[in-house]
């Protein structure tokens, strides 16, 4: 049985850490108003583009390979998610558990080899 009360300190930590970081972000804004450092103007608030107005919308097309990496990541991270419980229960499952996981890994390696062969991992 998992003792959930062990996780309570983490929840409290989350609240404190969030409060701390929020204070770090919002306090200087207030302080800047008080000290008079807060003086925004149109030029200052425009986006950075080496000193001239931006040519185009920054949220334009990006390389499809970032997509491919994300998709491959999902596959291998899911694989890791299967490996975690397997790793701590190998003493219970024994050789059958080990062989089963090896078959699973072999299938994934075939998929990985296919992605490699197709050039999904290439960044020229």
């Amino acid at each position, binding site marked *: 049985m*998992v003792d959930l009360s*062990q*996780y*309570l*300190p*983490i929840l*409290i*930590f*989350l609240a*404190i*850490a*969030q409060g*701390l*970081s929020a204070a*770090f*972000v919002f*306090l*200087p804004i207030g302080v*800047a108003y008080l000290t008079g450092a*807060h*003086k*925004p103007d149109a030029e*200052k*608030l*425009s*986006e*950075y*583009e080496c000193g001239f107005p*931006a040519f185009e919308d*920054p*949220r334009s097309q*990006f*390389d499809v390979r*970032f997509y491919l*990496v*994300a998709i*491959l*990541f999902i596959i*291998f*991270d899911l694989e*890791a998610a299967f*490996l*975690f419980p397997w*790793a*701590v*229960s*190998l*003493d*219970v499952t*024994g*050789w059958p558990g*080990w062989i089963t*996981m090896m078959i699973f*890994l072999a299938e994934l*390696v075939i998929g*990985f080899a296919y992605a*490699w062969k197709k050039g999904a*991992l290439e*960044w*020229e």
Partner: protein
Amino acid sequence: MTSFFQTLGMTHEWAWFTATIAGILLIALPLMLAVAMIIYVDRKIWAAMALRRGPNVVGPFGLLQSFADGLKVFLQETIIPSAANKVLFLIAPIITFTVALMAWAVIPFNSGAVLADINVGLLYVLAVSSLGVYGVVIAGWASNSKYPFFSAMRAAAQMISYEVSIGFILICVVLWAGSFNLNAIVMAQKDHVWLINGFVANPLLFPLWVMFLISGMAETARAPFDLTEAESELVAGYQTEYSSMAFALYWLGEYANVLLMCALNATLFFGGWLPPLDIPVLYLVPGWLWLFAKIFFFFFIFSWVKATVPRYRYDQLMRLGWKIFLPVSLLFVVLVSGWLMATHHFCDADQTLYPDPDHYGRIVNNGVCP
């Protein structure tokens, strides 16, 4: 600590609550102080390697440099670009810094000196550190500016690429230790090979440590993998539009993550709070001192690499992650698990390593013993 507060006349619940708050502050505040000092140390090491003097004006030997910088950014104006998505723009640094602090909740500083002694500690660290990518991606998107956007794309792809191999490396460590609990992993390294406390002395795990160290640098976007903020290409990366303390939070979060990586290196491969050698006289030094010494040693390596190794190109970075680390770490999962099965590792481990098996959720009766 709970019992200490109980002696002050509190009920058990209130004593526990006060003790937890005290523990959290005992982790978070010294961590922020340590980050301020480690930035100074980083600059000093970097300067020494370039035959410069580094910060030496503010305070004795320039020790107060980070605090002066902190005060400066605190008093600066927070510029929120007119094109930015303002709420997300301000939330992003909060996420980054919160996540950087959170992971420390499960790092054991001494025998039992850990805020949350959960049985899936390592999994928690992995989960929390992978949340860090949100802070960067949201910053890049919400800035609505070209360079932060490119940087966020790069950062996301880089972080998730190396997370895969880090996951496989951690599985090997967990296989050998038989637990996700970080205290149990530290104890499993006691007297591992020839009196050495640490998995690093193990020939099967040593290559994994090397990969973990390099992956850690890539995961924290530290030089030579700092492509997310390559100043010759992307100005300041995802931080370009940030100013004031929001900018500093990225800085602090980054160094807190670097320290976390150093702490993980120490905990997973170098015996954590155990002394380097399993000799009784070394146990006279308190455990947290050993851990801090190891963290500092790894930070020196991180600084050293930053000062000496030229930056990778992005294609080289992805090739290293996907074509070298991923297959090799996957191979090591097979090798390590196969070796442990073949040598009946799981038969004799339980009784000696875990005097109280139920505490870590272990099942003592196992089916692999001959």
